[in-house]
């Protein structure tokens, strides 16, 4: 279970949010909404431990993530705003490296399946379009069923309708299996979030 207690975040001398608390249990979906610059990405980066909050703590199963560090990192998949793929490597190589870094082993067959479900050829990423790159990154979700926590920053950005539907299915499926997902978006999504945090309010 993921718990955020009394989080505050300040960026560049401006307070983005304060006193923010929530709990995300297994099988729940958390949607973080808000306009540009309201701190959605910062909140997600705080929750995955890349950014330390100005105040407050984030707990995973009751332990502070600051202390858990890589033990916590092993539990989560974080897909950030940037593409997080190497231009000179192929989609399959990128996917395999991302999984190995996260500490979970995937077979070449699983990787092929993941790329197939996003209709990606195994080309060097520099020859892919913006949307296809995004697909190459999100293909990781197909092989990440075993990771209990997904943190997704704007998962629908740059995707077409078909790929967007696929991501929705993956998110729903993960929650149905008992995984927890937190995602940011300013678009409408058919995913039924069990909680919504609106940073505008």
């Amino acid at each position, binding site marked *: 279970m993921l718990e955020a207690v009394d989080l505050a975040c300040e960026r560049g001398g401006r307070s983005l949010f304060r006193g923010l608390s929530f709990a995300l249990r297994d099988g729940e979906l958390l949607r973080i909404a808000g306009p540009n610059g309201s701190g959605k990405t910062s909140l997600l980066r705080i929750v995955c431990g890349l950014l330390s909050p100005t105040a407050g703590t984030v707990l995973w199963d009751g332990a502070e993530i600051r202390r858990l560090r890589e033990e916590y990192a092993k539990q989560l998949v974080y897909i950030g705003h*940037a593409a*997080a793929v190497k231009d000179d490597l192929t989609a399959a*190589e990128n996917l395999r*490296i991302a999984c190995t*870094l*996260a*500490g*979970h082993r995937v077979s070449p067959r699983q990787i092929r399946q993941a790329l197939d479900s996003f209709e990606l050829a195994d080309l060097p990423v520099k020859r892919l379009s913006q949307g296809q790159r995004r697909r190459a990154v999100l293909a990781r979700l197909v092989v990440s069923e075993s990771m209990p926590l997904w943190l997704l920053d704007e998962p629908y950005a740059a995707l077409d309708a078909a790929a967007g539907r696929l991501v929705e299915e993956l998110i729903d499926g993960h929650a149905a299996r008992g995984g927890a997902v937190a995602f940011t978006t300013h678009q409408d999504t058919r995913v039924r979030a069990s909680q919504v945090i609106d940073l505008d309010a």
Partner: protein
Amino acid sequence: MLEAARCIVVRDLLVAWRRRSDVATALLFFVIVTSLFPLGIGAEPELLRSIAPGVIWVAALLSCMLSLGRLFAADHADGTLEQLLLSSEPLGVIAAAKALAHWLVSGLPLVLIAPLIALQYDLPAPLYPVLALSLLLGTPVLSLIGAIGAALTLGLRGGGVLLSLLVLPLYVPVLIMGAGSVDMAAAGLAPDGQLLLLAALLIVAAAFAPWAIAAALRISME
């Protein structure tokens, strides 16, 4: 064990292989800088022999600096650095893997090509092993210390120039011991002491630099 670290070394080597020209450029820089000295100073064999160790070592320092700028900047730009910070192994181990990959791509080629430069400077044959050994021990220290600077200057304006201002003063002991060991050998003395000191520097750097790199990355990525 250490699967993530090994994965990073392999990944960086693969990327370097697919961008061979970048590696070649840093190496060419080394060759060109060393070739400029005789043009500026004059080509008396005696003079060249005496400045050779220093020139080769200074050029190695500069060429190392040149490639350090890309060490984390490329990963930072495409977003993979965030994934490195969230990997399943301690960040210090990951940082050590990055430094190792940097050395394999930019330090080791210098060690291999240095005898060729020494040939141009007419360095006596018995000094070749000393020169190569000093570079072999010294260049990994350059990668380790340089990576701290590269992590601190991540994403800053004028990062490259700033990086050299931060890192070059810290390179002084390596330069002195590296070039000094060859000078000692040239003077007919045993260079063991200096080489051992270089080895000691390498051990100390290998033990502490990865944690400093990790701390610097955390600071810069916030």
